[in-house]
């Protein structure tokens, strides 16, 4: 199937995520510093560095789902904090949604994003507008689904998701946090983007870019 995403893509996605997270480590730390505890970038960098090490050292996973499951387990056991279990759950649910398919078609891509998003909501109980990563995942899910329904390719679905996630992350700036660490600041949390929403946008952007590159 043309433009379908395979195991190789999943591996590239994760390596690219690791690169982008490392590159933006300080940015994410600083976002978290002003309304949180200054560790989000460090946590994700530690986690995705471990993911890459795991990918380098283990046998190549056989399906996209196997890749995402490996990522889920690695993040769960190396990230800690709020982001560890949330992203861990997200990747685990995403893996489950893919089953043992060898390739990911546009609808599967959208379903994967929804599964990730629903996993985060199930674990974290945040609603849209609470100034969390959910504010990036939710519009990403909706845009991905709209794109898939409109007949977009898988890379296009992911691109739609990434763009929406970026917009969603930007839109967290004026919000007053009601979940996570930023909620302790009350009104003082307004005026800054949520670090988890921003990292979500980076992750989905890595998905879109690696997908586009693979079919360029």
């Amino acid at each position, binding site marked *: 199937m043309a433009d379908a995403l395979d195991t190789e893509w999943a591996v590239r996605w994760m390596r690219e995520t690791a690169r982008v997270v490392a590159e933006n480590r300080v940015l994410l730390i600083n976002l978290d510093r002003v*309304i949180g505890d200054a*560790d989000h970038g460090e*946590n994700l960098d530690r986690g995705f560095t471990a993911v890459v090490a795991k990918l380098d050292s283990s046998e190549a996973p056989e399906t996209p789902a196997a890749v995402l499951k490996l990522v889920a387990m690695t993040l769960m056991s190396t*990230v800690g*904090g709020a982001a560890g279990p*949330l992203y861990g759950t997200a990747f685990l649910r995403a893996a489950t949604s893919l089953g043992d398919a060898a390739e990911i078609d546009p609808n599967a891509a959208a379903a994967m994003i929804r599964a990730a998003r629903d996993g985060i909501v199930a674990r974290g109980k945040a609603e849209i507008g609470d100034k969390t990563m959910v504010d990036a995942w939710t519009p990403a899910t909706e845009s991905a689904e709209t794109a898939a329904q409109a007949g977009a390719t898988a890379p296009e679905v992911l691109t739609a998701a990434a763009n929406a996630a970026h917009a969603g992350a930007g839109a967290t700036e004026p919000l007053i946090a009601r*979940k996570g660490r930023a909620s302790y*600041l009350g009104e003082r949390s307004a005026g800054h983007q949520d670090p988890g929403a921003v990292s979500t946008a980076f992750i989905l952007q890595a998905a879109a870019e690696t997908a586009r590159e693979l079919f360029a």
Partner: protein
Amino acid sequence: MKKLINDPRAVVNESVEGFGIAHADLVTVHPDPLFITRKDAPVQGKVGLVSGGGSGHEPLHAGFVGRGMLDAAVPGAVFTSPTPDQIIPATTAVNGGAGVLHIVKNYTGDVLNFETAAEMAEAEGVAVRSVLVNDDVAVEDSLYTAGRRGVGGTVFVERIAGAAAERGDDLDGVTAVAQRVVDSVRSMGVALAACTVPHAGVPSFDLAEDEIEIGIGIHGEPGRHRIAMEDADGITQRLLDPIVADLSLTSGDRTIVMVNGMGGTPASELYIMFRKVAQLLDGLSVTIERSLVGNYITALEMQGASLTILRVDQEMLELWDSPVHTAALRWGA
């Protein structure tokens, strides 16, 4: 940033290693995944107590591992809750057949990671209960928020639940005592200067020479509001008032009081605050039965302090007084 550290990423491992050497008579350090257990764990027939959280709050939690307090402490990265793959083996390692209580400070990360660990430890056949410490009156509590943070009250929960476990209470009993402490303890903090997270390298927030942050937590986060610098008596009153209100402390109540340093505050200043707390509570005819003044739950080298008050009944007081032998708290043993 100047710190007595080597690689910022090795801070937790190296410091726990040093802790293990210094207190080899009390604890065993399990390096990978990292957790600390009391030397004689698992104590057969005793409920095991496990707590943990981000590092940077020393002596919490490792300093409270030992007889009459915690069976295991699980340190995460600095200000980052630990992962289930640390919490699970810590939990099974201290299960003496009577089950394990998780003492969890109310932060999303701690809650989620302990939740996962509890589930998986249960799946391995360990009976696990949890209590959530959420004593910080600086934080608004509502159904729609993450709720109050767990701060200084944690020390009281660990001590008193630890005593109940040592006494031989069963898992439900220890859990009930722990919950009773949670329900009766409140805290409030102030910062004069921020701390610097090693991997971040810059202070968590900036305060002018004449400003202080009221309602800070223990993670270098800014507080609820910023006010002009005041004298110690004025600041102490600001910390005490919301606690008294929230606990509805009234004449005849008995308490244990902790004036806690955030890591960079001289002991003399803590005693100046304690003096004022004693005066104010005396004015309300509230008794201070026991007290702790010192660094018990810190935020790296933050300059500031927190006040924690537990309303006690006779049983809690007796549990408090029972022998405890840990690196940071010791009496009767």
